[in-house]
């Protein structure tokens, strides 16, 4: 029978204690996941009774209602319509659940949250770009080949248009429309604007300017920028969400996006952008001053990576060009190289130390790319995310930069750092020493100070690998507890897809939608019978008579696809394998494979209750 999704959603909503009590809603393949403000306001009992809700539990601050594949999304759509909530992704729900985090932590976390999804793009590009740009330094002829120009285009696409990737990802993080986010990102690198990478070539008066109200807006793009883009998209998402609430539904579709984009664009170019360009000029002036002194170099080596996080580092070409014009020697390069190489060292240490395979897979290529002077993947993907490696990198950068300044290192070229700069420096051995110091200090610090922070993995891993992990109790009575007999989702007896079981004719109990094909003993007890067809087994302990029955109507399979690991009369321990079943074979035969566990003499026992113990 088809479920009335609307009715189901309305009933769920009616038991949640009002709209104010729902912070956000999302769904996964089978569950409706809600973040609830005050759990005491919800009527759990009534929720369980709602037709279509197969079960519910509270986990990690989320109320999870089991609804089922193919159904949950429809109920979810109706639920949004009924409640007027906007769609949230699973990540949003997690974010809402984590919203009690202090503000400064949230702010530091944001660039990481934005960058993690786009890491594949920037890791690949960063590595390629580093290699492509390094080759001509050692083999100049390559630099003028068609291959070079083609590979360079491929490699730098993601960086040249980085704001677009950042904007899309940020829109997801902040809950805005990703396409509007993309528009904001694209606008910030629009070809009609002067490319931020080349703006240094223009004299101040040459840059075209818009006069909007009392704002004078320089028509410069945001290539290479990160923070202004994140801020712009944060603003956009805030405006968009606010408008969605205020604008009547009839005109919402065109009014909201239009106003959102327009207002965001205006504020971005008139306020966010200029504020950042002022900041940039200060940083530039400060950096120039710092780089001219010995101890300044030390400080600059430390704070350099912060300016990468801010997206200001591309401005340094101006400083370098100025130095070469004045003295013929670019002494900025050793500072930048030390800072970048230290991030390489820190990232490499993470790569070698970390156990999480995913992190390792990102850290290794990221560190390589950093050694070639492209540090964004290493910084955003690894070091800044874990923070400590970033700080260790700062230390390495500071020491390296000090060494460089002490020995008057420099180069007559600009725009390169790290390994690619080797052919150009005025003293190659000392430069190599500098790189070693910077990377070595950072590497050593990370190696000894940083510890892999893995609470999530710890929680997830045992569930995966340890069948020995105790199952929760699903039936309780005066005589004792009966544990879940099979991995999977526990559903209420009423939801078992078979009338006889569901009606409780054979006793109280629960169903389990199995995740694997193993039925285990639900307590230490005696196997009182194993059906000839191996699809069911009965057990006894302290007067509790339990039937575990795999699937519905599977008796018709005559044992095909079922294995018995025990015999009648066997004494078993909780968790011991009883029966094995082939889920595919059951599906092929056209039966449901819900594992049913019933306390068949529940009528004679006292205090029987079912469901996962809370």
């Amino acid at each position, binding site marked *: 029978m088809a479920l009335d999704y609307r009715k189901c959603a309305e009933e769920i909503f009616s038991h949640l204690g009002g709209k104010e009590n729902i912070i956000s809603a999302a769904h996964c393949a089978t569950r409706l996941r809600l973040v609830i403000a005050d759990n005491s306001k919800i009527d759990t009992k009534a929720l369980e009774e709602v037709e279509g809700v197969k079960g519910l539990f509270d986990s990690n601050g989320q109320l999870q209602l089991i609804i089922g594949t193919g159904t949950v999304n429809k109920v979810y759509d109706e639920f949004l319509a009924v409640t007027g909530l906007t769609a949230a992704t699973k990540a949003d729900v997690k974010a809402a659940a984590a919203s009690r985090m202090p503000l400064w932590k949230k702010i530091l976390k944001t660039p990481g949250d934005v960058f993690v999804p786009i890491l594949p793009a920037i890791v690949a590009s960063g590595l390629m770009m580093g290699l492509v740009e390094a080759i001509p330094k050692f083999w100049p002829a390559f630099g003028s080949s068609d291959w070079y120009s083609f590979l360079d285009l491929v490699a730098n696409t993601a960086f040249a248009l980085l704001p677009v990737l950042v904007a899309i990802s940020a829109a997801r993080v902040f809950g805005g429309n990703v396409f509007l986010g993309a528009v904001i990102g694209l606008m910030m690198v629009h070809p009609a604007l002067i490319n931020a990478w080349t703006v240094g070539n223009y004299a101040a008066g040459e840059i075209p300017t818009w006069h909007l109200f009392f704002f004078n807006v320089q028509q410069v793009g945001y290539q290479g920028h990160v923070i202004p883009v994140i801020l712009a998209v944060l603003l956009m998402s805030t405006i968009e969400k606010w408008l969605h609430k205020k604008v009547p539904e009839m005109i919402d579709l065109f009014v909201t996006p239009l106003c959102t984009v327009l207002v965001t664009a205006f504020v971005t170019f008139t306020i966010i952008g200029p504020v950042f360009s002022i900041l940039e000029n200060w940083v530039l002036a400060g950096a120039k001053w710092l780089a001219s002194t010995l101890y300044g170099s030390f400080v600059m080596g430390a704070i350099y990576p912060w300016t990468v996080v801010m997206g200001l580092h591309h401005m340094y070409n101006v400083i370098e060009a100025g130095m070469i014009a004045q003295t013929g020697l670019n002494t900025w390069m050793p500072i930048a190289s030390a800072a970048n190489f230290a991030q390489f060292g820190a990232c490499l240490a993470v790569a070698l130390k970390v156990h999480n395979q995913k992190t390792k897979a990102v850290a290794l290529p990221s560190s390589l790319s950093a050694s070639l002077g492209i540090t964004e993947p290493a910084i955003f993907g690894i070091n800044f995310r874990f923070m400590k490696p970033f700080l260790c990198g700062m230390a390495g950068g500071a020491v390296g930069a000090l060494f460089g300044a002490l020995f008057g290192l420099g180069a007559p070229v600009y725009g390169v750092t790290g390994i690619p700069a080797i052919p150009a420096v005025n003293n190659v051995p000392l430069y190599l020493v500098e790189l070693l110091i910077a990377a070595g200090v950072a590497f050593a610090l990370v190696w000894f100070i940083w510890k892999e922070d893995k609470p999530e993995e710890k929680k997830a891993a045992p569930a995966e690998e340890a069948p020995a992990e105790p199952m929760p109790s699903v039936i309780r009575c005066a005589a004792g507890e009966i544990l879940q007999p099979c991995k999977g989702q526990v559903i209420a007896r009423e939801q078992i897809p078979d009338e006889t079981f569901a009606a409780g*004719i*054979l006793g109280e109990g629960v169903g389990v939608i199995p995740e694997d094909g193993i039925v285990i003993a639900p307590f230490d007890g005696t196997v*009182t*019978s194993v059906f000839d067809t191996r699809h*069911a087994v*009965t057990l006894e302990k302290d007067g509790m008579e339990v039937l575990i029955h795999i699937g519905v109507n599977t008796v018709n399979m005559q044992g095909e696809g079922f294995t018995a690991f025990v015999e009648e009369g066997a004494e078993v321990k909780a968790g011991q394998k009883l029966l094995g079943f082939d889920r595919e074979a059951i599906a092929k035969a056209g039966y449901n494979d819900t594992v049913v566990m019933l306390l068949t003499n529940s009528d004679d026992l006292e205090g029987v209750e079912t469901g996962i113990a809370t």
Partner: protein
Amino acid sequence: MKSFEYTITDPVGIHARPAGLLVKEIKSLAGSAVTISKGEKKVNALKLMALMQMGIKQGETVKIEVEGGDEEAVAKKIEAFFKANL
């Protein structure tokens, strides 16, 4: 005491569901003690577990005995149940 014999026609025998239904049916006929036997084995028909453990299959003949209460009527009803379900 009233008794009758019945040969199971259900291809899967008295497995979980029919056993459950049978127990339910017999419970509703309170007042009589009902036993079901196959060969030597004899069980209280109210005991689902015991009933299932007999593993009664198609073609096997069971003997049902009703003791006490309105034996005649109860036996008739149980027989009707067997014919309809088993």
